[in-house]
């Protein structure tokens, strides 16, 4: 599938099916997703996978989902590098979202206040030198309707220098 064919399809709301998410597939997709641009090839990301087949794993923190992927980022001392690294992680997550969509996997990329709470993050195995960049809520979705929803009029804010 070409990327340009996905335009418009990605905005459908995501409803998860009650099916396990195989780790092997996650790794297969991530090994493509990590071809995101990243400054100095620092590859600032790391992954913590949490299966939620028994439910309730992140109750109160996240919406229910068959599985979660915590995307963890190494924190550089330099503010500018931290910003570049966060951008790189976001590009990698975007790659992953697109690839997952092709496999009928829905990805909700979420950022919440609890992720800034160090002691909370530590309970998931996040190190002191790291932070949670985002938590991905993952699950299979019904095969995507090929018909694309009516595109809302997009106000592109584009100006000339």
């Amino acid at each position, binding site marked *: *599938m*070409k*990327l*340009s064919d*996905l*335009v418009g399809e*990605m*905005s459908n709301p995501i409803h998860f099916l009650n099916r396990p998410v195989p*780790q092997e597939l996650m*790794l297969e997709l*991530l*090994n*493509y*997703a990590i*071809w*995101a*641009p990243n*400054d100095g*090839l620092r*590859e600032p*990301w*790391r*992954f*913590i*996978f*949490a*299966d939620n087949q028994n439910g309730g*794993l*992140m*109750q*109160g*923190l996240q919406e229910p989902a068959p599985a979660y992927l915590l995307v963890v980022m190494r924190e550089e001392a330099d503010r*500018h590098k931290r910003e*570049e690294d*966060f*951008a790189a992680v*976001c590009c990698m*997550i*975007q*790659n992953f979202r*697109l*690839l997952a969509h*092709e496999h009928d996997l829905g990805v*909700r*990329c979420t*950022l919440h*206040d609890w992720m*800034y709470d160090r002691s909370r993050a530590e*309970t*998931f195995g996040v190190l002191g030198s790291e932070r949670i*960049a985002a938590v991905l809520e993952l699950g299979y979705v019904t095969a995507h309707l090929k018909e694309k929803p009516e595109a*809302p009029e*997009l*106000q*592109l*804010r*584009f*100006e*000339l*220098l």
Partner: protein
Amino acid sequence: MNLSELIRERRSIRKSNSRPVEQELVVELLSSAARLQPPIDAGSWRVVYAGTPEANKRLVDCMLAQMSQSKLGKLIPGKLLDVFKKRFTDIPAHVIVMSTVGPDRLTNDRNYASVCGMMQNFQLLGWERGLGMLWDTESIIQHEGFFKGIGLRKDERFVGILHLGYYDKAPRSRKRTPAEQKWTVFQGHAT
């Protein structure tokens, strides 16, 4: 080219050829890039575009303003500065991206994450059409004179410039660390 090949084969392009970049194409790709995002707050980012020789010159002047005026910059021979300038003015087009600053860290991070995702879509969609890009965040351009030059507003932060151009040859890939080596499975019950 399928999606995984596209993602795997895209490269950052540091050397473009002289083929012009059409503004209509840039607008089309930006619109598509935005529509590959979850229903987003379209108000959370803005783009300023430089794609004519005059606009490019203005951009390069404000990129280098700080450098040429600084103490260190005064020591840089004029010729070297010209070489530096030419490197940038030779690039056919530039997309400058800014995101809206919110009242708190979470809003800022969300807006920033969303626009970065859009920019990755844009880079991939460009690559699909043979258009190369380089995402420039050099700290040397991050100064007041530059922000003023690009018209950055009080409620905005600068995200990056994408330098756009067609290329003759894509650089070779640099090996990535396999995801398996960066993978942990959470066992416990944290909450």
